[in-house]
């Protein structure tokens, strides 16, 4: 499968920047040309130039009217025309329009010349209104000068018209260029977009292929891992049967009369067998954790029972010298998976006391209100202890390099701790002791008295059940007692159910009904203990009510 070469990210940034640059150039170019077009379209230079020419002609006509009849009206008209011409000529250089007019006129143009001549005429304008001998000649001289300006203004106007036209052509050409540039930019943008789309699609396909490959690899790895775990579990299971076949006869052999040396050999063989059973049980659980089949139980148990179980296992493993205690103030019973907790602490304790006098180790169990806390302390120091603790704490799940002979017990313990949502930590101490702490979430059992009514016709069974469930917190009430009852145990194998159950339900409306044996009408019961002669199940079922 070819995945193609990955596209560098900077290429996308370069493409985006290029497109933004093209767009900016096009935008500003068009905006500039549109603004120029607007300014040119507003320009009134042609009109102003023509008006100037026209007003000069009108002034000349008013002067011509003045010569034959210097009347007040003609004098006023001449004065008015002069002022109007003045206002036109002296627009030059003022405002944007005046700037344009000045640009076309140049430094010594006709408009500047006319302005100078008007300033020359202004002080003598009053003299022209008074009849005098040389007036006609003066007016003729003025007319001659003004006629010359008229011709120059004509040329100026033509120059303005042509220049305006040229400027318009220039702007139109620029707009055409801008339009072409815009078209090219748009085409480039489209091409770049298509290219970007193609690259994105290709990258997307590549990513999908990589994801698919990763998924398949993960599935294969998962399948391989599960197969190995399953194989491990099955092998552990299968090995336990012959082991039991060895341990059973060994136990019988140990009870027979043997010489001291043979007895010691039997004990040694038993210890090795127990150790193998421990390891196989741990491996079985570890395999279940690994392939996801691990199911944690949550049942009430006593901390004393946990301590006793750990103590027994350690003794069976030859580490009976270790001290196992329950801290004062700890709740008597807690919720949890007794078997798994026992395995955790046994594996950790055996790991810690390996090649060491077990008497140096102390296990203590307590409860901090939310978690069961067990601490394993050993009175030892040195490089070997520190190395073992480092190995224990640094173990990482799934690191094949760490699966060594020394790490088997820590691996099993840590796997079970993680499965129990527990935390493993080292406790800092001021002395030379090394303490490993395991905290597993666990609620304390609310201890109450459980009042039981037993319904059976068999006195023998009644005695057996009472003996099996005997406890400080379980009280069997007499049949005729009117005290409230928490659990009604019904021996479904020896009583007729229908009328009896109706009567019992009416008598104990709030009690929990448990059938001992498979009932004919299961709907009457809240719980069923199918095999009533399995006392451990019965005890577990009944004592479990204490926690609920």
């Amino acid at each position, binding site marked *: 499968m070819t995945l193609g070469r990955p596209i560098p990210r900077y290429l996308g940034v370069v493409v985006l920047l290029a497109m933004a640059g093209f767009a900016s150039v096009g935008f500003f170019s068009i905006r500039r040309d549109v603004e120029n077009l607007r300014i040119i*379209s*507003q320009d*009134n230079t042609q009109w102003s130039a023509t*008006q100037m020419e026209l007003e000069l002609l009108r002034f000349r006509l008013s002067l011509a009217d003045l010569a034959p009849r210097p009347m007040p009206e003609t004098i006023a008209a001449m004065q008015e025309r002069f*002022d109007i011409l003045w206002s036109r000529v002296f*627009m030059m250089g*003022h*405002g*944007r*329009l005046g700037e344009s007019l000045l640009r076309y006129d140049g430094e010594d143009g006709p408009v500047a010349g006319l302005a100078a001549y008007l300033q020359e005429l202004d002080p003598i304008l009053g003299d022209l209104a008074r009849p005098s001998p040389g007036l006609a000649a003066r007016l003729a001289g003025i007319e001659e000068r003004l006629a010359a300006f008229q011709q120059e203004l004509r040329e100026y106007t033509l120059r303005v018209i042509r220049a305006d036209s040229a400027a318009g052509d220039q702007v139109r050409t620029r707009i055409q260029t801008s339009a072409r540039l815009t078209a090219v930019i748009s085409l480039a943008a489209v091409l770049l977009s298509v290219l970007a789309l193609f690259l994105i699609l290709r990258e997307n396909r590549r990513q999908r292929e990589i994801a698919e490959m990763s998924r398949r690899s993960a599935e294969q790895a998962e399948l391989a891992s599960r197969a190995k775990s399953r194989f491990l579990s099955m092998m552990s299971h299968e090995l336990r049967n012959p082991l039991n076949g060895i341990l059973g006869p060994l136990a019988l052999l140990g009870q027979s009369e043997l010489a001291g040396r043979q007895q010691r050999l039997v004990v040694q063989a038993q210890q090795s067998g127990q150790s193998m059973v421990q390891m196989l049980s741990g491996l079985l659980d570890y395999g279940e954790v690994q392939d996801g089949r691990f199911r944690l139980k949550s049942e009430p148990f006593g901390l004393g029972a946990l301590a006793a179980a750990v103590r027994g296992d350690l003794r069976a493993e030859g580490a009976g010298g270790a001290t196992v205690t329950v801290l004062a103030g700890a709740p008597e019973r807690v919720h949890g998976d007794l078997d798994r907790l026992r395995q955790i602490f046994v594996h950790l304790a055996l790991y810690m006391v390996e090649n060491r006098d077990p008497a140096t180790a102390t296990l203590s169990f307590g409860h901090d209100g939310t978690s069961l806390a067990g601490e394993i302390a050993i009175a030892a120091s040195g490089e070997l202890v520190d190395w073992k603790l480092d190995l224990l704490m640094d173990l990482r799940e799934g690191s094949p390099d760490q699966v060594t002979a020394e790490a088997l017990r820590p691996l099993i313990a840590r796997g079970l701790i993680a499965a129990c949502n527990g935390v493993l930590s080292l406790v800092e101490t001021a002395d030379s002791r090394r303490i490993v702490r395991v905290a597993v979430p666990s609620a304390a059992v609310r201890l109450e008295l459980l009042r039981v009514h037993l319904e059976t016709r068999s006195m023998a069974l009644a005695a057996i059940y009472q003996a099996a469930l005997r406890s400080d917190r379980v009280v069997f009430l007499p049949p005729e007692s009117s005290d409230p009852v928490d659990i009604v145990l019904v021996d479904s194998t020896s009583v007729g159910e229908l009328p009896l159950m109706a009567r019992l339900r009416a008598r104990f409306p709030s009690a929990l009904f448990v059938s001992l044996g498979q009932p004919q009408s299961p709907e009457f019961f809240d719980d069923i203990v199918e095999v009533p002669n399995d006392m451990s199940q019965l005890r577990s079922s009944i004592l479990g009510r204490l926690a609920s």
Partner: protein
Amino acid sequence: MIPWFGAALSALLRTLLVACLSLLPVGVSAAESVLRLVGGDGRALDLSLQELQAMPQTTVATENEFSDGVVSYRGPLVRDVLGLAGMERLAEVRFVAANDYFVDIPTRDFSDYDAILAMTADGERLSRREKGPLWLMYPISDHAELRSRVYLRRLIWQVVRIESR
């Protein structure tokens, strides 16, 4: 009334009048008619600078194509002037300049914008040589839409007559 007080007041008023008249452009007397309004019925109303000056004055600070930078123009609102002859109700009026140039303007302009008949620029009386004595001025700097060729042509100066269309 005390005789000397009356004489002093009279002298003060005369001084103020002379001072006012001295502000008027050369060649145009304050009482002389400078603007003729010709209503729809053909009746004419002549207005002098004095009369126009007596009307409420409005200042328009704006740029235009014919002046450098922002100039403060001041004069009566066109709608008020038209109102003197009842011409504000017309749809369109014609402004005529001294050189016979004219432009037809919808009266809606004068309700939409505070256009004035400017009589002074930056406090100086507008003479005929400075496009006065009356220059129609729009507040161009306050309204972007007025920066167009249409309104540029409506900035008629040396206005002498406003007549109905």
